[in-house]
């Protein structure tokens, strides 16, 4: 059972991880983009935490909507609208403040689904999708197979990390690295790395 409080703790842990890594993330973005991904993802996650604090007493669905709105109010480059729609997708499938394993899986699938709608990228395109897709798959498989939350998020975090790791071998089809062609090979996609830090945070907070 995933409670609102647990999700809050997970998100805060994820935000803390991003805060710790943001300089490195901007440095990654400098290799294939405009050097600001750490700034934008940190801004988005900081906004998420602010929304969490401001809306702590609201039902989960409102809380998630507030996070989405707050993120989309930031100047987030590519990251803002993407992450915003991710949380919007979560809100669409947050029926109560205590979610069953199946409801939890559905909520994360809905998030990915809404994200994909505006992203249009596919796995292998060297974007956040490369971490999000395997993480979501691993999470849902584990939850539906009866795994505990801790096991499920640990496996999601592993999958996200592997997905981010694999972006080194890809040519980018979306985002600023798109124009680099083969020269993007050898560099991590900063967005995918961010997603892996976020899922690592989820796992760390759910043990």
């Amino acid at each position, binding site marked *: 059972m995933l409670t609102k409080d647990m999700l809050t703790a997970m998100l805060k842990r994820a935000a803390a991880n991003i805060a710790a890594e943001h300089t490195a993330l901007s440095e990654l973005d400098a290799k294939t983009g*405009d050097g600001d991904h750490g700034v934008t993802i940190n801004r988005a996650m900081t906004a998420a935490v602010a929304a969490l604090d401001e809306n702590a007493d609201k039902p989960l669905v409102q809380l998630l909507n507030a996070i989405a709105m707050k993120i989309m109010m930031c100047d987030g480059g590519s990251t803002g609208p993407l992450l915003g729609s991710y949380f919007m997708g979560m809100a669409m499938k947050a029926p109560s403040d205590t979610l069953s394993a199946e409801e939890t899986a559905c909520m994360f699938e809905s998030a990915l689904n809404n994200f994909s709608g505006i992203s249009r990228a596919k796995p292998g395109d060297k974007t956040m999708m490369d971490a999000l897709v395997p993480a979501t798959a691993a999470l849902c498989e584990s939850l539906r197979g009866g795994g505990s939350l801790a096991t499920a998020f640990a496996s999601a975090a592993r999958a996200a990390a592997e997905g981010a790791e694999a972006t080194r071998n890809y040519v980018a089809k979306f985002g600023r690295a798109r124009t680099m062609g083969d020269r993007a090979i050898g560099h991590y996609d900063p967005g995918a790395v961010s997603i892996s830090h976020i899922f690592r945070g989820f796992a760390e907070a759910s043990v």
Partner: protein
Amino acid sequence: MKKFINTPERLTAELLEGMCAAFPKHLKLVKEKLVCRAEDKARDKVAVLSMGGSGHEPLEGFVGPGWLDCFVSGDIFAAPGPHTVMEAMRLLKRDAGVLLITLNHSGDVLSANMAKQMAAMEGIKVKEILTREEIRPTEGEEGRGLGGCVLLYKIVGAAAEKGWTLDEVCRVGEKFNTQMAAIAVLSEIATHPATGGQCGDMGEKEMEICAGQHGEGGGVRMGMMSAKDTAELLAGKVIAKLGLKAGDEIVLAINGSGKATLMELFITFNDAKKFFESRKIRVVGSHVGEMLTVQEAGGYQMLVAKMDDELKALWDAPSRTPFFCS
């Protein structure tokens, strides 16, 4: 990084405040991120709106009669969020409609798309033109939106000022949009003014063409060349891309990326103009200066659009804005 700035968090807020305070007869700042005309345009005319991250000064300032009604600024190199774009649309909402000009960059496109969806829900009449005039090294690659947007602002700004309908403004804008091309040459990489980080690096004697804006590195590296050789190389690619031929008429602009001196830009303009003219392509409109910079990046963008009588009349229409004296 050695810059006269204050806290990195307030860079954009302070620069926009300063820009509007310096040109109070032209600009006013609404809600921290919306650079608007000092005096609003009549409500029965189409409003024109554009958006983009900051750090590209003076791009935010092409606002005024015959130009934009509003520029929505994001933070450094980061597209404004969908909500901020939406706010501008609400401000400009009118029966005549709103034209949004978006530059083809991932974040801008994502924000614009979400803002358009919200606008539709609120019954705001919005059309969009997406600029992607950048010349890429290989055919088929999709271009990004570079400084050509400024030339487009002039064209659609003039059409809107004349009282054309949204459809008409959009039609002429799209025509111009498909007839324009931009190509960038980069000789030094910009620093991100908040992080101090550099996007990529560049050898002592290297330059990169088709380099886009931030030094993302999607271009072709080569040895540094003279002003003339560089201008002719770029102009040749423009001619090929636009299929220009003897007798054609163009607007030619050289946009400094930040560090390039006006001396370099004037010399380059001179070389480019002569090259086009040697092909019997007439330069009927021109501009040289900083329009869309990327901090202190070295190099420039060559911006060219093929003109016809309708476009020439709009290009020559009187207008008023702080960064382009017509």
